[in-house]
């Protein structure tokens, strides 16, 4: 399905996509009321009738791949199924038509759901306090690092200015720390793909404010020495943050709060099944230990007797990170999901996520190199290094998978694995789906030996073929130009 036309090309003077009412009040005209100095000359928006609007965006939608269309083994992104009941209930008008500044007495239903979600997150992660305000995982990270910064300031440790991240970390970790004014120190991973304790010990000193760690890590391995790591960090006077991107692996099996972490964020759009929406809106709640609770953003939702209220109480708070209270409609979806699963259900989710990943790994590790070929958690990182010798790159394998009807895995991440193919099946895929994916991967491995050109030129049956990304960046065209 190819789309050639932009919405601007459907435009014709006089068309409109919705009927709007005439004014029912007698007043001067708007132009007169505002004053001519305040008016714009022209409003160059398209004029399109409703049929064309709907057809245009329907055509666009058909040029997308999506979870509802097929398997999406995108490592570190947890592309699980997005239950329809979440969408329906979060969109009830009682929730959606609520203004954030209405009196709390008029918002008790939403506040109750927010409060409950805070409590559920505490139970799942093993922390003592939660904020729902961060609008995405990256903002959750940012919030947690600001909480750390505030704590250090308040305890006379404001001189600490370094944040340690392992070389396998996600790019947001260093970017977030830098935004808090911290310098970055990168530590190498050990040969088993986990934190190298000696290297970490050497890096820790009186200047270190925090360590940021993903557990399970980006190679899909659990940091087995996490208790020792946390103790070591605390002994050095620093704090330790858990990037919760991989929580889908361990629900009901491991709570980061129990092992010594001081704070973590969750991606509701990963673990708790809220949709990715083509890149947002996400939601990135942060959970912290009790001693950090006073620094969390305000307001928080609290409860007095049976009455829920927005609590602006904490004077040591870092302040706001969002104009209002966070992505509440996303929080509601996650709340529906958690209640649809219960404690046993969430544990079962993680078990099946881990089982599916290990199953895929066991079936693919002959044809593809798997550098850390032990047991994995919910994802594993394979490498196209064997295929690279035949002139086939991870990118070619990814593009060829599209021909077989799959979304490619994450490629070239983590950076420490050459030609990385990071595969995360999630719990919502059936063994039949996994088996056909395995079949495709094995076929591609054979093609790399027999017919590499078919990989280089892939994908073949998509709305568009491989793109000229260099020209896009050299001569950026960032908006529609009728002359162009």
């Amino acid at each position: 399905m190819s789309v050639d036309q932009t919405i601007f090309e459907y435009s014709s003077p006089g068309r409109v996509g919705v009927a709007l009412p005439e004014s029912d009040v007698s007043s001067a005209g708007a132009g007169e009321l505002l004053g001519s100095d305040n008016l714009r000359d022209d409003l160059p928006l398209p004029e399109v009738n409703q049929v064309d609007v709907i057809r245009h965006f329907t055509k666009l939608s058909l040029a997308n791949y999506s979870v509802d269309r097929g398997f999406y083994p995108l490592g570190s992104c947890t592309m699980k199924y997005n239950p329809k009941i979440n969408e329906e209930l979060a969109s009830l008008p009682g929730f959606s038509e609520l203004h954030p500044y209405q009196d709390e007495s008029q918002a008790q239903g939403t506040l109750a759901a927010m409060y409950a979600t805070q409590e559920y997150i505490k139970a799942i992660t093993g922390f003592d306090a939660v904020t729902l305000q961060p609008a995405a995982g990256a903002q959750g990270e940012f919030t947690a690092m600001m909480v750390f910064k505030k704590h250090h300031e308040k305890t006379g440790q404001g001189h600490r200015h370094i944040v340690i991240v392992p070389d396998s970390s996600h790019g947001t970790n260093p970017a977030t720390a830098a935004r808090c004014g911290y310098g970055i120190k990168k530590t190498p991973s050990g040969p088993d793909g986990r934190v190298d304790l000696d290297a970490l010990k050497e890096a820790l000193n009186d200047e270190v404010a925090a360590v940021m760690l993903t557990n399970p890590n980006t190679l899909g391995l659990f940091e087995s020495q996490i208790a020792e790591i946390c103790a070591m960090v605390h002994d050095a006077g620093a704090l330790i943050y858990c990037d919760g991107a991989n929580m889908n692996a361990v629900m009901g099996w491991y709570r980061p709060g129990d092992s010594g972490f001081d704070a973590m964020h969750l991606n509701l759009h990963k673990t708790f099944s809220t949709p990715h929406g083509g890149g947002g809106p996400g939601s990135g709640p942060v959970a912290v230990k009790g001693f950090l609770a006073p620094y969390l953003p305000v307001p928080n939702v609290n409860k007095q007797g049976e009455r829920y209220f927005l609590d602006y109480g904490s004077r040591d708070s870092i302040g706001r990170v969002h104009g209002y209270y966070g992505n509440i409609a996303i929080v509601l979806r996650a709340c529906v999901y958690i209640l649809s699963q219960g404690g046993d259900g969430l544990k079962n989710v993680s078990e099946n996520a881990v089982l599916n990943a290990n199953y895929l790994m066991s079936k693919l590790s002959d044809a593809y190199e798997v550098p850390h070929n032990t047991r994995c958690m919910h994802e594993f990182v394979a490498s196209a290094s064997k295929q690279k010798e035949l002139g086939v790159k991870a990118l070619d394998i990814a593009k060829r998978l599209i021909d077989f009807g799959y979304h490619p895995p994450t490629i070239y991440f983590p950076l420490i694995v050459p030609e990385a193919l990071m595969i995360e099946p999630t719990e919502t895929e059936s063994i039949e789906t996994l088996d056909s994916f395995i079949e495709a991967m094995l076929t591609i491995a054979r093609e790399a030996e027999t017919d590499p050109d078919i990989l280089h030129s892939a994908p073949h049956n998509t709305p568009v073929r491989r793109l000229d990304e260099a020209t896009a960046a050299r001569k950026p065209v960032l908006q529609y130009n009728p002359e162009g």
Partner: protein
Amino acid sequence: MDTSKLKYSSTHEWVFAEGDTAIIGITDYAQSELGEIVFVELPEVGIAFDKGDTFGTIESYKTVSDLVTPLSGEVIEINSALTDSPESVNDSPYDDGWIIKIKMTDPGELDRLMTQKEYEDSPKEH
């Protein structure tokens, strides 16, 4: 440009020195490793750098690298043509793709750079 007359750094810059001025660019190896160059961030004329300083960045569409000056000095000219045609760095790394011209503060630093032979034999990591 006769590449045998150039000096080379371990960070893959080349230098053409004449009197107390030096022209700096990146090597053919460096441009091929980076892939299609899409943008070169240039310094302003008049800025002084110490040897080892980052004087700009060079971007392909998926990576970005710092440009490191192998010599101390003040920028006296920049190749502003790269703003519109960064691909010159790919097509002609030793001629049209030059990046800056500096006035050296310590021409003695040249002696610590590699010859073409030494550069070609050096281990390549970036």
